[in-house]
């Protein structure tokens, strides 16, 4: 996976590059709008980490240049501006995610991984968390090579949770994805599936667990991750 990091602050660029390389990515670095625009046109990057404040312009310019030549390029925005308006304008401009400085590099890596897991972007990808892996084409989840044999709906729930690893998936979203319009949904359908999944993951020693956010939804978290 090849990433482009656009960041003018030399030290941050350096540290981000080191940790992304340690996480197994190939990383190129740019420090200006002009360089970054040239780079996205030349190289088919898998994702871009984009700082908003650049010496020769706004990072959003790079974003629109990138969108012109590449329709699907996941972009994670970095910024020191943190108001709701800033976040909304960045996401409106086409960024896929948003991280406010200072950030933990672990958080940066997991956000990038999450972006690369987006449906439609990475077809036929294997999703992983802890010792669990889910083959989105073969429709099979396994732990350490041992298939779990999950029913269709549990597999679909697990896939959504894996695609947004470490982030909350609202229960309403799961219901929408699993059931068609007008289809009768038993009020406890999702919780029942979740509790089965939870038991199966624990029994197989998957190294990840489903957490409940009462009143909102669920998230999957790797064991040992804070």
């Amino acid at each position, binding site marked *: 996976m090849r990433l482009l990091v656009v960041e003018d*602050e030399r030290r941050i660029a350096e540290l981000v590059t*080191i940790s992304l390389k340690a996480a197994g990515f190939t990383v190129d670095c740019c420090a200006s709008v002009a360089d970054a625009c040239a780079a996205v046109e030349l190289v088919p990057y898998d994702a871009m980490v984009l700082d908003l404040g650049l010496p020769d312009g706004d990072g959003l310019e790079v974003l629109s240049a990138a969108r012109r030549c590449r329709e699907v390029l996941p972009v994670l925005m970095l910024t020191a501006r943190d108001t709701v308006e800033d976040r909304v304008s960045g996401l409106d401009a086409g960024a896929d995610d948003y991280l406010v400085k200072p*950030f933990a*590099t672990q958080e940066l890596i997991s956000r990038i991984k999450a972006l690369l897991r987006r449906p439609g972007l990475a077809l036929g990808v294997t999703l992983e968390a802890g010792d669990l892996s889910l083959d989105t084409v073969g429709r099979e989840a396994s732990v350490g090579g041992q298939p779990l044999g999950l029913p269709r709906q549990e597999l679909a729930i697990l896939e959504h949770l894996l695609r947004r690893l470490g982030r909350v998936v609202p229960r309403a979203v799961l219901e929408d994805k699993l059931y068609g319009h007008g289809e009768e949904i038993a009020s406890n359908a999702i919780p029942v599936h979740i509790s089965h999944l939870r038991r199966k993951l624990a029994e197989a020693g998957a190294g990840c667990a489903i957490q409940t956010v009462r*009143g*909102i939804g669920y998230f999957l978290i790797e064991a040992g991750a*804070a």
Partner: protein
Amino acid sequence: MRMPSVGSLERQLILRLAGVNLLALGTGFAWLIVKSYRIAHGLNHDGLADLFAAEFLEEAGWTFPFFVIGMIALVVFTVRSSLSSVAAASRQAVAIAPGQTDVRLEDEGLPTEIKPFVLAVNGALDRLAHGFEAQRRFTADAAHELRTPLAILTAGLEALPDTREVVALRADAARMGRLVDQLLRVARLDAMPAPALDKLDLNELAADLVARMAPWVHGEGCMLAFESTGAPVMIEGNADMLEGALRNLIENAVGHSPTGSEVTVRVGRDAEIAVIDHGPGVPLEQRDRLFDRFWRAPDAMGNGAGLGLAIVAAVVSVHGGTAEVVDTPGGGATFGLRLG
């Protein structure tokens, strides 16, 4: 018909002009009667003259009220149309929303006596806008200047091996980051004492924030939960400020909660929002000062700067609401906000 308010220029002009005109009209009619009486009298026929005057009153007298009404309508119309440009300028001034700094009053077509006044008001608006812009740019610049070195520090510390000292330094950097966040929030609040308020759904705002914060809360060893009636709770509010206030309350609650306990965010039907924890609670004697800036409990073990709840109080007051702390049934603190 709209009545001009007491003390308005329009009312004064209408009353005076109408008075003068009424006097002139009355005098005119009286003069006509006297004149016609004289003419008849000149015919040397007293009885005929009296009859003539009486007939005049009978036949032409009824037109008097119509003249009066017509005259008053003319006066009102003249006064209103000559003051309409002033009225338009004041409507523009009334329509300036809080936080809106780009509106100026229209000075075209104003009477020359009033134009300098409107120009002076526009000048004052220019200076205010300039001040706001400088403040806004300062907080934005400060955010960048403070956060960049912090980001370098955080990333640098993360790249080091996990020794006891490094772990402690990471916590220090995180604390510094939180303090910078809060100071910037205070600066933004001070720079924008009357921010733009939009229609928003409190339920959606709270649910969204709970979803974003839940993984962090889990990492801190607690659980975050959300309770609501499910129906939208529409209020006039500033999303950025409300989110900041709620974030502070959740962070506080998590900081004071025993491991494994639940922190609940509850949105009520009447624009109430509560953050409920099961920690030690807040002693009665501390509740009054709790929302003061830089105030910290004497036995505070945490490492806050005493800004969090002051921010909450300021945000709530911007929304014309109230903040209070009560006991959670069974132990703990419940921070309740009532907005608008």
